[in-house]
């Protein structure tokens, strides 16, 4: 017979996994959008020195 606590354990682990998955997806999408934005900026023919961006903050 199944323990009455089984669904509570299942709910807790599912909620944790799902929340961590959402957080990972958000962090990855954020990183990808940053890379895309940096790429777009580098392609703009600006009059400033892009080669100096390595140590820029």
């Amino acid at each position, binding site marked *: 017979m199944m323990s009455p*606590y089984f669904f509570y354990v299942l709910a807790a682990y599912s909620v944790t996994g799902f929340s961590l998955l959402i957080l990972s997806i958000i962090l990855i999408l954020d990183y990808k959008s940053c890379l895309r934005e940096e790429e777009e900026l580098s392609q703009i023919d600006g009059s400033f020195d892009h080669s100096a961006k390595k140590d820029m*903050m």
Partner: protein
Amino acid sequence: MSKLPVTSWNFFKFSNPGIFLRFIDRFLPWLCFFALFFLSLGLYLSFTAPPDYQQELSVRIMFIHVPFAWISMFCYSMMAFSGLGTLIWRHPLADLSLKTAAPIGATFTFIALLTGCIWAKPMWGTWWVWDARLTSVFLLFLMYLGIIVLTRSFDDPLKSARPAAVIALVGFIDIPVIKFSVDWWNTLHQPASLFRLDGVRIHSSFLIPLMVMGLGFFLLFFSFYLFSMRTQILRRRIYRMRFLAAMSEEFP
């Protein structure tokens, strides 16, 4: 005349974003690998642990709830330390560290609260009570949200550095309150079982999975943190590039 050893590990060398990014690139894959390894091992140990004589199967919620509660407090302490770094040492990465840790800490605190509610229902007969421990952790969650809102409400990211640092430092008072709330007040939440002066009060069959899961989640937290730090450094560079581009258009 004494000289500093040239080979000594220097914390401030990481104030250079380029060096810090190289550090992240080198260590992040290993960190992710070990996080997944310890979490897999921890999950296996959690589900093969014997049922508790009182709590039965529901004791397995402890293996996720407790590490998330630890990390929620650790993350906020890290943010307060970053706040000190901003205000005292003016470390260029301290502000980024604070801003990076806030959403991750908020998520971990949210999971700690949620798994706590799910555990409370079969054990206490209610999802939530406004006792000292639960209320102080909820307050911690609200402070995380407040810092996230504050850091995103300025157009210039540098302007939010000092107010966020001050709020993080002021809010740090909540961390000892959370820790000692179960000793100072009568709470429904059980007192500490691990970090006690009279020794650990958990049987090794539960302690070992708990520690392995704790290690795995700490490594996962640092993986998220370093990954997000890389994004924040890139974002700051983009802001700076846009600023320089605007300046060069304004003053050719």
